[in-house]
């Protein structure tokens, strides 16, 4: 029985208004499951900027491998509540060696956010639920690791290989 338990297989949640999406409006959409402490995700992020695709980013923090991934994801969602998801997202990936709480506050301040509000949001249940929903939706769709890309409905786990980069470039018409 599919869905017999909370994390049984389920289709990938469709990209909706709750998702963080950027890139050219008319470009093909690629979904990325990543975490801010994952070095391969940071490398992927840099390389994706060279390909004109529309990207939806979803959180997939796995604490055992990356203990600061979850607090960093919460920070990005807290920033989102002050309309600064992508600036925080970029700031987190730009310096993965500094993801402790004071580093998160410093980023919030540098981005001109209300730091007290950022801190309250970061620790809120709503933000935790938002990140958890991304993770659980990913698990149910079979996302096993970071980064995982969803390209034209197909799941590609791990670092993209040359064939997938070729496909992404073709898709983008680049």
């Amino acid at each position: 029985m599919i869905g017999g338990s909370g994390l049984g297989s389920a289709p990938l949640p469709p990209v909706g208004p709750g998702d963080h999406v950027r890139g050219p409006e008319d470009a093909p959409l690629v979904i990325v499951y990543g975490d801010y402490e994952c070095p391969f995700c940071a490398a992927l992020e840099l390389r994706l900027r060279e390909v004109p695709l529309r990207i939806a980013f979803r959180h997939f923090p796995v604490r055992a491998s990356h203990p600061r991934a979850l607090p960093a994801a919460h920070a990005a969602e807290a920033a989102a509540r002050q309309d600064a998801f992508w600036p925080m997202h970029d700031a987190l990936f730009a310096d993965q060696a500094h993801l402790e709480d004071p580093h998160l506050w410093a980023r919030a301040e540098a981005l001109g956010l209300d730091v007290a509000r950022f801190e309250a949001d970061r620790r809120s249940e709503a933000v935790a639920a938002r990140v958890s929903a991304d993770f659980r939706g990913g698990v149910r769709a079979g996302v096993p690791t970071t980064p995982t890309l969803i390209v034209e409905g197909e799941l590609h786990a791990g670092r993209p290989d040359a064939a997938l980069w070729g496909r992404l470039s073709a898709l983008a018409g680049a």
Partner: protein
Amino acid sequence: MPIIAAGEPAPEFSLETYDGGPFTRANLLGRTTVLVFYPFAFSPVCNDQLSLYNEVLPDLHEQGATIYGVSCDAIWSQQAFKDSLGVEIEQLSDFEPKGATCRAFGVLHPRGYAQRALVICGADARVRWSYQAASPGDLPGANLIFDALGS
């Protein structure tokens, strides 16, 4: 020999635990057990796999399932691996006679290590579900375990 199939009784086997005692077929009785066979401690995909399953431990417990990692590594290597990953999943060693349990479950790779495979045993020590990854580099998603537990 292919991986043990659903419906078959689990074979007799003995694995070593970190606290020294053996883990045998008798330990399967009375509860649901998920055995995660993995090729090598500290190899990259194993890291991701156990970390992912560790993240969903509360959900596994909710399903009444206990999960173990099984490989042909020495228990000390497995324990160092567990500590280094920061996972809570208990490890079972198939070190001596090397690979005997993996062979009994049909998951011993010809080159002497565990295939990447999952076996779920019911409270009657009968196999409820088994799965072997297409290649040791493939990482089975946690959803597969929950599908099997929910069926």
